[in-house]
């Protein structure tokens, strides 16, 4: 993240707003903020919506939110970086979230994620160079009864093994 986000000059802010004016998604976000009456305590809800619309939180987006909610950019940036759910980097085409909760861990989720890391040659939290797959780990998705669980593109899949996980990922990479 560059330094401009902490102390945006007028030019930087104008650039962000110019960017916003040409994009419909910013309009949707503004409507959402309006529904919350631009209240300061709606910041997390607004960031959720922003991430849902854009996939990740880029600088311009954070500046836009801070300008509209009349919050200092430092506060918006602080909240966006504090919570694990928000990401400031774009995600790959597909996401693979390996649950590393205790139940999954005890049942061998560590081996699943190790196999995927080895196969894709990336670490957890990274995206492959061709932008195909993002590998993430979760702290517990509450699916402990069917451990180890892996979430492929939002679909929770029960009882995974290193083999079944690799098979799933192969389909994405082959395409």
């Amino acid at each position, binding site marked *: 993240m560059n330094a401009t986000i902490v102390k945006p000059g007028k030019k930087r802010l104008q650039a962000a707003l110019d960017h916003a004016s040409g994009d419909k998604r910013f309009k949707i976000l503004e409507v959402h903020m309006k529904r919350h009456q631009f*209240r300061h*305590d709606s910041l997390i809800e607004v960031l959720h919506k922003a991430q849902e619309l854009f996939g990740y939180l880029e600088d311009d987006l954070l500046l836009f939110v801070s300008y509209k909610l009349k919050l200092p950019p430092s506060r918006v940036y602080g909240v966006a970086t504090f919570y694990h*759910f928000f990401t400031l980097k774009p995600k790959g085409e597909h996401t693979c979230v390996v649950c590393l*909760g205790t139940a999954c861990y005890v*049942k061998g989720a560590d081996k699943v994620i190790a196999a995927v890391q080895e196969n894709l040659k990336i670490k957890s939290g990274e995206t492959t160079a061709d932008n195909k797959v993002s590998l993430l780990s979760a702290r517990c998705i*509450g*699916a402990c*009864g069917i451990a180890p669980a892996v979430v492929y593109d939002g679909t929770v899949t029960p009882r995974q093994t290193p083999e079944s996980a690799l098979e799933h990922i192969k389909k994405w990479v082959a395409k």
Partner: protein
Amino acid sequence: MILNDLVQIKEKELAARKKITLRCCMAAGCMSSDSKGVKEQLEKAVTEAGLQDEVEVRGVGCMKLCCEGPLVQADPQNSLYIKVTAENAPSIVAALKGGKANAAQTNPDAAFFKKQLSIVLANSGVVDPERIESYLAADGYQALHEVLHETTPKDVVVAMVKSGLRGRGGAGFPTGLKWGTVAKSPGAKKYVICNADEGDPGAFMDRSVLESDPHAVLEGMAIAAYAVGADQGFIYVRAEYPLAISRLQIAIKQAKQMGLLGAGIFESPFNFNIDLRIGAGAFVCGEETALMASVEGKRGTPRPRPPFPAESGLHGCPTLINNVETFANVPPIYRNGAEWFAGIGTEKSKGTKVFALAGKIKNTGLIEVPMGTPLRVIVEEMGGGAPDGGKIKAVQTGGPSGGCIPSQHLDTPVDYESLGKLGSIMGSGGMIVMDDSTNMVEIARFFMEFCMDESCGKCIPCRAGTVQMHHLLDKIANRKATARDLAKLEELCDMVKNTSLCGLGQTAPNPTLSTLRFFRNEYEALLQPDQFGPRGNGEAAKQPAAAKQ
């Protein structure tokens, strides 16, 4: 909405019930094994067989035996089908008329089900969580009506004190006392918050309650709000639980439409609204002061207490914070009376506790047992012991704040005090069983890594201490540590435990301390001889006995 309307809806719903019910589990665990497809196929098969007037297919909440999902139960035949697929759904419908079902079955009267006592989960797996009528048919919202019209807020608090309910979030603070404090705090504006930020890895009770019986939580919150004099409630729920969020949204909408939430509930002067707040993946937000900061849209960092939230909480107003399960206990208490509730459980821990049983155990899923049930009953009789002939080594309760209870202590009754004595905590109810293939040092390192990542960074003991402890545990696990490192680790554990600001830091050393207490030999077996001697005075160290092997 008056009581008559409520009874009418209930009777209409009961009259519409059909002779045979096929209950199909629609909680997150079974949904991931395509229970939605199963339900569609069941409905289709019922229509094709022309049994629409006799058979009802009902999507219900968690049916508890999560490892065998998707589950389908036929009533009154009392047959429980496991691992049902969309293909064998038609044969289940055929079996209702004397055919043979082409799906595996399990005994619904097995110990796993029979030993349970359902208070919080009474409606789980029975009512349709997406229809308020279904909850009303199970006497829903009648407790709220009674409380609003027949008792004063003071009496509500008195009854809660009498019931002996203690907070189900982990610490076990008496709920009645908390309500009384908030009720007495001066202030025109008060809040009620439901803590549904179930961050403990290995715990899914709150998720299941919200997915299976969201109205019970709403009703519990409304009763609490009446008792303390609040008119605004928040449910802070994890973003990782999309199904729970959508069911809560539906439930709140339906309750508002029926006038069970909002202004003038049951034609009384009592107003109460509930809003959802979605978390964003921070474990520390389960701590009450951090949670309130997050509800205010700020970074979720805790602050020192006092002042306690009961005096100065959300936006500086008196705030009542309780866990999901605590609120879900409230309607049954007022429906059946405080004495009834106080008659269940042990002397100091009343009622039941829901546990999420998972890990190396045959039957994983959700169980609710009376307080004081021995761990052995839960793990061996209900859970069925370790799979594949393994031996149970330890049971972990309380997640990253709890500890490991070794197999020789399995006869410990489950209540707040007994678990505390063993260096663990009741926690919110995650129960992970470990067998003899589990390395305890690695488990301690796993939890420490978790606490290190989740430390909010506000206070130094937790921020720096967890990093150092993780480093030491890593060193031990990689066979690079000496006895001095182990001593340093224990010293650090003590320091972090006693000097951290909030519960996260204060309990972060617990998994390490409890594994050190019961499985010290595993740590010592990994230690290397210290070339400078145990005190660093140049004396050659004696090799630890275990390391020779």
